[in-house]
Structures are given as C-alpha cells and as structure tokens.
C-alpha cells in the first residue's frame, strides 16, 4: 500500500547542514525513516596520510567548525602518546580552557537552535547573544571564533597573557547568571516542556544497545564521560562532576546540556585562576615511532575516537575518525519511528548532529515496502478517515 513520502532536505529550513531524511509518513506519524547523509564527504582521512605532523593538525581541525579543537587535540595527544612526550602542565591547562570554552559555545548554540526549532525565537536570540561572550574570549585568546589553531604536537602554539586571563575572568560572572536563568527556564517554561517531554525517548538499555554517546547517552542515565573514564589534560585537577539525567527524552538531553554548561564554567574558572607557570611546549621529534593508539576525547557532542597508526615516518599511516554524531545516528533512526513529523527536527537536533564531522552514512530499513507519492485527494481522504472529529458535519 503506498504511503506518503515527505522528503526533508537536503535543503530545508529545519536543517543547518545538508542531510536528506526521506520520511515515510502515515498522516502525521512516522512509519519509517531513510537517512541519506552523503553530501559532505571530503576525504579527510586519506588526505591526512600525506601530511606531516605540522601540516596535518590544521587539516584535523577543519573536520568540523564547532568541535574543531576536539579533533586537533585528540589527534595531537594521540601522537604525543605514541612519541611518549609529556607536555608541560601550562600547555595542558591552556588546552583545557579552550576545550571547555568550545563546549560552552557549542551547547549555547545548540540551546538556541533547539528553541528555534520549536518556534521559540526569544530563547534563540538570548542564547546566541550570550554565546558572544564566549566567542569574544576565544577570539582574544586565539585570534579566531572557530578553528583556533592552538595545538601543535608537543604543546600549544600561543600563550595566554595576564590581560587575556583577566578579561576572560571578568566575563564569567554575567555568563554564569544567564546560564542559571536558562537552567530555570528549561525546567519551567511551558511550551518548551510541552514540546520536549516524552519526545524521542530512549531507555537506558536501548541507549546502551545502540551505542549512543555524549549528552544523548547521559540523558538516559548512562554515566560514560571520557573526561572521567580516561582522564586527559587537566580534568583530573579541576573540580567537576559528570552530569546525568534519567528522563531519556529531548527534555533530559536539554537538562544535561545546560547543567554541563554550569560544569564547564566551573572548570574554566578553575583553570584560569590556577594556570601554572612554565613553558608551553616541548620540542617534538620529527618522526613518530611505529605504534598504534586509540585516542578518545569528550567532544561537545560525545565521545570522539581517533584510531592512529604510525609507521616510523613523519606522516601517519592511518587515522580513523569515529565522530560522536556517527555513533548517535542509530538511536535517532530507532527513536523516530511512531513519532510525529513535527518532532523530527527536535529529535534530530537533540543529538546535536554535526554532519561536517560525520562521514556519510545511509541507514535503510529492513522492510522492502515500496513507497510512492500519493495524490492530494487520497491524502485528505486518508487523513479524514483517521481523524473523524476533524471533519465538519
């Protein structure tokens, strides 16, 4: 029996990045979902094999705009571990500061986008305006709002001057106050609650089984956080907690992200106030010894895994990037069935997809029903037959 195919994408106001959802719908309920995410493949992994360690870091950074520092840090710390280099504490703290600032700007951006998707433009305007405080800090420290270029193998490339530290510390109290207000808002604002609660629910078992990572998994009660499981940089020293929630729906994911904003503020403040003195880099050898490493990093969207293999030269043999968004697509496809069309943007946005990070994947359903476009008469007739109370007597 033919069903209605609503094609959302690759150009659609709901999506910030090109992706194509072919939604097989029955009225407003989704029956099946066909994902086609093949619009952004750039061959980064192949290109990385031809660049030495100085040139490959800017390439790694440009895998994604919003989580650029994640990729370059994951790669740099992987190579440093293969080379058995210990980078100085000041470099670690600076990397942590940039990493947490990046997490904050990513979460604030996500909050605005989620609000925009449910038509709540006021919160969208407010969060993006507060995000400017973070972006100003990043620009002062690194010279750019994204793609910071702070990392090199062996440490960081730029130091932080006392003026920059003081300016950053001065911006934090106002930001903290706004974030506290957002925490209250997420828990009490009626239209947000109505649109987010119960939507896209993933139980703890389902989340584990589908391999979800990041805030999506932590909203279902799973407390995996690479910063605590496999500590790196300054996360051992800074006082912070892993944030989990038990709701498992979009509401839970929103709560996890705003609480993580508060935790990030604490980490940034601690690192800014306790920045150790010392050098910011150690000299790194040109070639890396033969070795293999799985470098894991907690990007704003979840766990990022760089599998790096070196062969004794100054280039990597292979870098295999598994981004958090790729890991979360299975859960999206699974939890979209039997939801409303109106909730697609919200559920997809709840995993905070970064398609620039994701290579391309397509996920097809196992059923082999054919789908086709039906005429408008049939559409209206089928809608009316399912919703008799909407028909005027």
């Amino acid at each position: 029996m033919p069903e209605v195919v609503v094609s959302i994408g690759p150009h659609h106001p709901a999506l910030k990045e090109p992706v194509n959802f072919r939604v097989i719908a029955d009225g407003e309920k989704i029956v099946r979902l066909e994902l086609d995410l093949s619009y952004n493949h750039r061959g980064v992994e192949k290109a990385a094999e031809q660049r030495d360690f100085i040139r490959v870091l800017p390439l790694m950074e440009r895998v994604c705009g919003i989580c650029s520092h994640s990729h370059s840090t994951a790669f740099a710390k992987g190579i440093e571990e293969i080379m058995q280099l210990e980078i100085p504490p000041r470099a670690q703290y600076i990397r942590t500061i940039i990493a947490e600032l990046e997490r904050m700007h990513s979460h604030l951006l996500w909050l605005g986008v989620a609000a925009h998707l449910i038509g709540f433009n006021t919160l969208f305007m407010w969060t993006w305006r507060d995000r400017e405080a973070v972006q100003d800090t990043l620009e002062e420290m690194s010279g750019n709002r994204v793609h910071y270029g702070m990392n090199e193998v062996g440490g960081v490339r730029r130091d932080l001057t006392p003026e920059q530290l003081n300016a950053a510390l001065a911006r934090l109290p106002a930001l903290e106050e706004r974030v506290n207000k957002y925490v209250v808002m997420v828990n009490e604002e009626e239209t947000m609650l109505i649109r987010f609660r119960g939507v896209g629910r993933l139980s703890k078992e389902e989340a584990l089984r589908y391999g979800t990572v990041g805030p999506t998994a932590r909203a279902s009660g799973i407390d995996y956080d690479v910063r605590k499981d496999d500590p790196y940089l300054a996360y051992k020293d800074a006082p912070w907690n892993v944030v989990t929630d038990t709701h498992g729906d979009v509401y839970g994911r929103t709560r996890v992200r705003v609480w993580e904003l508060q935790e990030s503020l604490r980490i940034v403040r601690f690192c800014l106030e306790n920045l150790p003195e010392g050098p910011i880099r150690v000299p790194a050898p040109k070639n890396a010894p033969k070795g293999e490493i799985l470098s894991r990093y907690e990007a704003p969207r979840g766990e990022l895994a760089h599998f790096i293999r070196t062969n004794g030269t100054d280039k990597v043999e292979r870098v295999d990037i598994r981004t958090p968004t790729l890991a979360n697509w299975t859960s999206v496809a699974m939890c979209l069935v039997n939801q409303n069309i109106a909730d697609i943007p919200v559920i997809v946005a709840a995993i905070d997809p970064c398609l620039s990070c994701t290579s391309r994947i397509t996920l097809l359903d196992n059923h082999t029903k054919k789908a086709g476009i039906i005429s408008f008469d049939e559409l209206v007739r089928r809608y009316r037959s399912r919703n008799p109370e909407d028909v005027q007597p």
Partner: protein
Amino acid sequence: MIDPLYGLLYIFIFPGFLFLFLYALFLAFLDRRIAARMQQRVGPPFFQPFADFIKMLGKEVIDPAGVDRAIFDAAPLVALAAVMTAFLYVPVTGNSPLAFQGDLVVVLYLLSLPTIVLFLLGWLSRNIFSAIGGIRAVTQLFIYEVPFFLALLTPALMAGTWSISEIVVWQQKNLWFIFLQPIGFIVALIGLQAKLERTPFDIPEAETEIVAGPWTELTGRRLAIMDLTIDISLVVGSALVAALFLGGPLIPWTVTPSWLGGVIGFFLFLIKTLAVLLVLSSIKVATGRIRIDQLNDIGWKYIASASIVQVGIVLVMNYLWVYA
C-alpha cells in the same frame, strides 16, 4: 441612508481603506519592534513593512508547474477584499455608518475567509509541504473557531443586539464587557492569536518543519497581498476585540461639540487597539510553537469549555437582570 459622498469618503479614505492600509503597516511595524526589544534586539525602522510591501510587489511571480494560475492570482485578492470589507463595520470614530443588525456575524465570517484561502492555496500548490500546511490551517480553524465565536457572541447576548455599533453604545451606558465577562475576553484574545496564526499557534506555517506550509509557493505580488491581508486581519481583530470588550471608541459621557467626540473617540480607538496589540505581541514573544495534536487537546479541553462556561454565566446574568 447615508450621503453617498460621505459614504465614499468613509469607505476609501478615512476610516476606510487608505487609513486601514497605513494603520495595518504601522501596527505590523510596532509588533516587530516590540518583539525585537523584548528579545534584546534593535528591530526594524518604522517604514519597514511598507518597504517590504513595495519590494515584494516588484518581485518576480513564479508559477509552479501545473498550477492553476488564475486561482493563484485571485485567491489572495479575495482574502484581502474580505478583511478590508470586515473593517467597514467596526466602529472607529463612533458608530459605523454601515452598521446593521447582524453585522457582527458578517464580520466573523469574513475574518475566517483568509484561512480558507490558505487551505485552498495549500491544496492547489502541488507540493507536499503546502498540503500539510493547508490541512493544519483548517484543523486549527475547526479547533479555535468554536470558542472564538462563542466568546465574541456573549457580548451580543448580554447587550441584546447583533450589531457591533450598538454593542459599543450599550457599553457606553453600562460597563465595559471586559469587567462583566473576563473569561470571554481571555478566550477572545487566545482565539485571535490563533486566527492570526501567531506563535504559539503558527502551526500552519511552521518554518522549521514544513518550509512555509501553504505560503511556500506564494511569490511576488501574491505574497505581498497575503501578507497585507494578515496585517489587516490584525487590525480588524484588535479593533473588534476593542469594540466588543473595551468599549470601542466611545467614552462613558457625551461630549459637545460632536466632532470633538469623534476625535476623542478616534484616539481611544488607537489606544485600545494598541493595548490589544501589546498583549498579542507579548504572547508571541514569550512562547514556542505547540503541535497540532496538543492544540487539539488544549483547545477542546480548556478553551472551548471556558467559553461554554462564559455563555452559561451570561445567560444566568441575563435572567437575573430581567427578573431582578
């Protein structure tokens, strides 16, 4: 019978079409400015809606393949004509010279026409997003029309007349209906927000879900005219609520000379419609969009029952009034 010249002036200049056009653009600007200030942005300059209208008139009209061009051209004009006509019966400076018994019902019907036109356009656009948007528009219409009509008919029940101008006169002698029927006032405001398809009820044109719903294939002068229709509906709706609940352009005592009364009435009209706009804009800014099935829930459970309760109260009060 009114003097033909006076009639023509009333209809076309003031307070007819020209005034309506300018006031609609002014209210659209105010709406955007208030929303922007609440969102801590700057907002557009005062002539922005006028500039948008002129610009859109000059843009290319794109016809999707296989679409009936004649209806696509005519439908927005029909919607515009309907709301402009509806304004003629709303009192602006005093009683409307075109008033007659039952003009309240006519105005309510004319205000529903733009939604029907949107459904027609959504159906005809040969586009799945427009079809879904059109269906949502009429679904929303079915949900809010019942409570909206009931809330606007309770003033008529209490005043004992079906003419808007006479209801206004009744309020001048007695009390504004906002004090006598507060529930009805709130239901009327909610219904007005839903009729104008503003957040939280902008479901049919939910930009992030179905592109622009039935508005998707409107371009050029068609879009300009439909936009103008919505802006004018805002004016007509606010003026209607102001007339039925806030006493319209009449003050509780008579003023001589009569032309001064007209001028004062006009200013009152402006103030009252601006007050209604302020409330509507605040609602628009402070909420997100709800889903159509949630609107179904809320609409029938709470809003419709509130309006029925209001009707019941009015009937009881009428009975007591007559026998007390």
